[in-house]
């Protein structure tokens, strides 16, 4: 059996004495040597003196050597190879084409191009591996060791399997070049020194280098203490226009400007203007021309629009797709915006001051959520103010401004005991009716100038009211006092639900002060719901839908009695306040009071992911629509095109789940219509959502060779091309050895050491005696 092959040695001390003991012994020997020299100070012969001193010093050295126990350490040494970390980009951006689409050749993905380069470099890597340890990693936002044979096998496959495996490999949702390089530099096998890093990537960083190189990144790169050699993949595909970032708040206020900040990245484009478009369901709602220039990598732009209605909407910002663009998917971005009211804008038009008007105004003015615009008729043409106009604070009634120019800025219009005829408003009634049908809200409050008494019979406004008015000439006022009670619909309607619990609520309404009379009606509209009525069935409060809008008929001018008079009867004014707050919320379609609801579990879905919407099906009377058949219409946010889908049947509780198929990227609005057994529409609801890849990885997939070059230079490395030889790269090659085995052999415990000591001490003694010293 052969012993180990030692190829190096070194002297060593085998003593177990501590350092301080060795020091004390050394000092003692030096002191003894010094004292001994004092005995020969008188010796005239310098030679004799020197010889004696030398012999004594040798003796001290030999004694000290015996204390140290010197030995020989034999070592079996091997040279340590430095390490090269090779990082291959496996983020999703590597799925995109390496070459422009118009190049004429077959499309090759960046991942494909990377693997081909990796396979082509195998001979050079083998040669390098004789000098260096090569650690192979895939990276996205972090690193993961890769198996070279597997990658080579993948490169050798073809067809659909090849494409599928490439997609599986390039699956990272982010790219963090800096962190990946730092992690690769720190890890590695056996603590080998780092000779350098090779990174092959498209450079589409979306982490700390997303904005480009910076001082902090440079410092971090220098701490790697090894050169980075960067190979840009897809570097030739440099023509691309990308909506890199679209920033907008999650919600906006209706009728208030919404700003959308857009960051446009243009590469390979000459100095030119490009149109930036914002669409809502195919309709262009904002547009701006943006100047792009290849010398300016990023261009900031801002789109502004004013939402005109509340709700959840899907929007798409887009730029055109130009010939030769590397990536077309990043030319559009979609988002969902929830448009809400900051304040409900209410127009209150009053025929004459009254307590009913005063208490309603007081309530609305106190409500911070209401922006109240009032117009009261304080003087009629028949009134004599006994003064000149300049002594009055009256202003002309601006009918044109209110009912033509500003009408659509209001969420709710209230006509309170107001006769339109004296103010020549007939010309505006059509417009008011259209405003309501198109989503507005209207309330008419009774009085001797309202409903039939206000000359509304046969007018366009009558058509949007939930009640039919008496024909001209018929009685318009019923002066018989009444005690209110809830109608059937009122028992579950949010407007009249002042207290939880049906019995308590009914008792509350029945306990309110009597009303002095009602405006008479000739009947109810088809969709009308009587919420309050007299004990003999005369309707007092009726609500209904008019097109997309809502209307309410309160057939009394004495609802104020539910406030002050009720307070006098120890009931408090809460009923009055709760009633009006709920009525306004219902009229303006407060989402919390919408009878039928549709809810997407997320605002953004992945492309290819099934989409599920939860529907709560209620009729306009707020009763569960069990068994209602749902049909779905899906509208594209970009084109406005719609497609129908079959929906489920609502369960006994009125709930249903709508399943939509996987959809391509884009913005969508789903509209669900519920129909009862008779085929009549029981309710509708809408929901908006976006289908888009998650994460930042696909927001800007443009190759960034310049970033890779800057990164490499910061480390003392360089940008390389596919043809550059890896073996010729100037990697660091620090000389470091590794000791495999070692053994020690003592040098002091032989007779030669003892003999040498005896000879030295004996010679010194003989010479000293011979020269006459003691």
């Amino acid at each position, binding site marked *: 059996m052969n012993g180990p092959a030692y190829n190096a040695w070194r002297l060593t001390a085998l003593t177990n004495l501590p350092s301080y003991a060795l020091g004390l012994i050394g000092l003692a020997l030096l002191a003894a040597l010094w004292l001994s020299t004092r005995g020969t100070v008188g010796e005239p012969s310098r030679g004799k003196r020197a010889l004696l001193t030398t012999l004594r010093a040798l003796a001290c050295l030999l004694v000290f050597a015996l204390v140290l126990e010197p030995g020989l350490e034999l070592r079996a040494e091997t040279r340590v190879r430095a390490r090269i970390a090779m990082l291959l980009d496996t983020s999703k951006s590597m799925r995109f084409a390496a070459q422009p689409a118009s190049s004429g050749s077959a499309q090759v993905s960046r991942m494909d191009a990377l693997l081909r380069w990796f396979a082509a470099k195998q001979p050079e890597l083998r040669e390098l591996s004789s000098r260096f340890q090569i650690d192979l990693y895939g990276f996205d936002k972090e690193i993961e060791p890769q198996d070279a044979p597997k990658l080579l096998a993948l490169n050798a496959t073809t067809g659909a399997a090849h494409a599928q495996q490439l997609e599986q490999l390039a699956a990272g949702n982010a790219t963090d070049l800096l962190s990946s390089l730092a992690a690769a530099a720190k890890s590695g096998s056996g603590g080998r020194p780092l000779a350098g890093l090779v990174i092959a990537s498209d450079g589409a960083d979306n982490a700390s280098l997303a904005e480009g190189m910076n001082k902090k990144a440079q410092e971090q790169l220098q701490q790697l203490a090894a050169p980075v050699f960067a190979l840009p993949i897809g570097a030739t595909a440099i023509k691309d226009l990308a909506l890199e970032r679209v920033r907008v708040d999650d919600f906006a206020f209706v009728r208030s400007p919404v700003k959308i900040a857009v960051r446009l990245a243009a590469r390979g484009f000459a100095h030119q203007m490009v149109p930036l478009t914002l669409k809502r369901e195919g309709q262009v709602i904002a547009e701006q021309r943006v100047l792009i220039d290849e010398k300016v990598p990023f261009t900031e732009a801002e789109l502004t629009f004013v939402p005109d209605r509340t709700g959840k909407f899907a929007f798409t910002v887009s730029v055109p797709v130009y010939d030769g663009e590397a990536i077309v998917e990043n030319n559009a971005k979609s988002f969902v915006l929830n448009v809400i009211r900051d304040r409900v804008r209410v127009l209150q038009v009053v*025929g*004459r*001051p*009254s*307590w*009913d*008007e*005063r*208490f309603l*105004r*007081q309530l609305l*003015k*106190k409500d911070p959520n209401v922006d109240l*615009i*009032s*117009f*009261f*008729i*304080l*003087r*009629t*043409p*028949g*009134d*004599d*103010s*006994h*003064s000149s106009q*300049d*002594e*009055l*604070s*009256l*202003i002309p009634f*601006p009918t044109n401004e209110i009912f033509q120019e500003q009408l659509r800025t209001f969420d709710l219009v209230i006509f309170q005991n107001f006769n339109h005829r004296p103010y020549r408003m007939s010309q505006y009634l059509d417009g008011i009716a259209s405003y309501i049908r198109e989503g507005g809200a209207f309330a008419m409050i009774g*009085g*001797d*100038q309202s409903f039939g*008494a206000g000359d509304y019979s046969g007018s366009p406004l009558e058509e949007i009211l939930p009640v039919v008015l008496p024909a001209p000439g018929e*009685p*318009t*006022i019923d*002066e018989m*006092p009444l005690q209110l009670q809830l109608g059937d619909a009122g028992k579950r309607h949010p407007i009249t639900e002042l207290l939880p619990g049906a019995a308590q609520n009914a008792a509350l309404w029945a306990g309110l002060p009597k009303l*002095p*009379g009602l405006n008479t009606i000739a009947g109810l509209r088809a969709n009308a719901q009587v919420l309050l009525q007299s004990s003999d069935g005369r309707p007092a409060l009726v609500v209904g839908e008019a097109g997309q809008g809502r209307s309410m008929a309160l057939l009394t*001018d*004495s609802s104020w*009695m539910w*406030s*002050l*008079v009720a*307070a*006098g*009867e120890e009931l*408090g*004014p809460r009923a009055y306040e709760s009633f009006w707050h709920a009525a306004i919320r219902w009229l303006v379609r407060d989402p919390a009071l919408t009878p039928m609801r549709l809810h997407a579990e997320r605002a953004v879905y992945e492309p290819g992911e099934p989409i599920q919407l939860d529907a709560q099906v209620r009729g306009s009377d707020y009763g569960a629509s069990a068994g209602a058949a749902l049909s779905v219409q899906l509208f594209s946010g970009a084109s406005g095109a719609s497609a129908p889908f079959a929906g489920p049947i609502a369960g006994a509780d009125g709930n249903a789940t709508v399943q939509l198929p996987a959809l391509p990227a884009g913005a969508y609005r789903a509209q669900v219509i519920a129909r009862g057994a008779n085929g009549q529409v029981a309710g509708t609801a809408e929901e908006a959502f976006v289908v888009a890849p998650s994460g930042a990885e696909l927001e800007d997939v443009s190759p960034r060779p310049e970033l890779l070059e800057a990164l490499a230079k910061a480390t003392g490395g360089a940008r390389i091309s596919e043809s550059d030889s890896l073996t010729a790269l100037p990697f660091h090659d620090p000389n470091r050895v590794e000791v495999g085995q070692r053994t020690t052999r003592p040098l002091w415990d032989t007779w030669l050491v003892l003999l040498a000591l005896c000879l030295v001490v004996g010679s010194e003694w003989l010479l000293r005696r011979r020269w006459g010293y003691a």
Partner: protein
Amino acid sequence: MRCKGRSRPLTHWYGARPVNDDSPTPSRRRFLQGVLATALVAALPRRAEAFGEASRLSFALLRHGGRWDVRPEGLPRLSWEISRRTSIDTSPQVRPLGLADPELFHHPFAVLSSDQAVPMPSDAELAGLRRYLSYGGFLFIDDASATPQGPFEQSARALVAAALPGAQLKAIPRDHVLYKSFYLLSEPVGRAAVAPELFGIELGGRLAVVLCGNDLLGALARDPYGSWEFDATPGGEPQREHAIRLGVNLVMYSMCLDYKEDQVHIPFIMKRRRI
């Protein structure tokens, strides 16, 4: 009965008293007044139908332990003037009501008046007044004695302080909406012009109590013969007209609150103020 829209007995315009008062003695003068009033009412726009009295403005006159009806003609006349000058639908009937009467809550405009000190009401009455004012009622205090810091004003201040602990009657600034709620006014006058300011208490952002020290209702009162019962001093008939306008503004304010401070009115009012 109402001031607008319906024909009504003449006595309700010129000879009306609170409904518990005795009827005035018929005379030829009163008959002529009635004929004139009927003609005037016939000339006003007519409304074919209307709700009952509850929908109209009718004043509540607060009964107290002192002389509470010293200006019985003042409020009906104010009612008539409001009906003639504005679009407000009024009732000439004045309801004399106690502070603790639940009926008071049907009349959001209440008047407290006397020319003597008002005895302090009971706790129940004070609680009723407090509730009335807190939930939207309006109280107009008119000093028929027109004596600043006189017995009535002092007792009325004490009554209000007892009803609304912590609240204090403060001078109402001249730029308050009360001075522009219908007419553009510059000073508060009544039969007299001895108190240069109105005083008020705000509750929940609105004036709930207003005190006038110039006998406003005295300026409006007519005798049974249709003549003004008192001279307006020192300004004479112009002062009386201003007193009537102040009465109209008070009622208009109580019904419209700060309507005339809405943004849309401001440029018009500023322009007319400059004129």
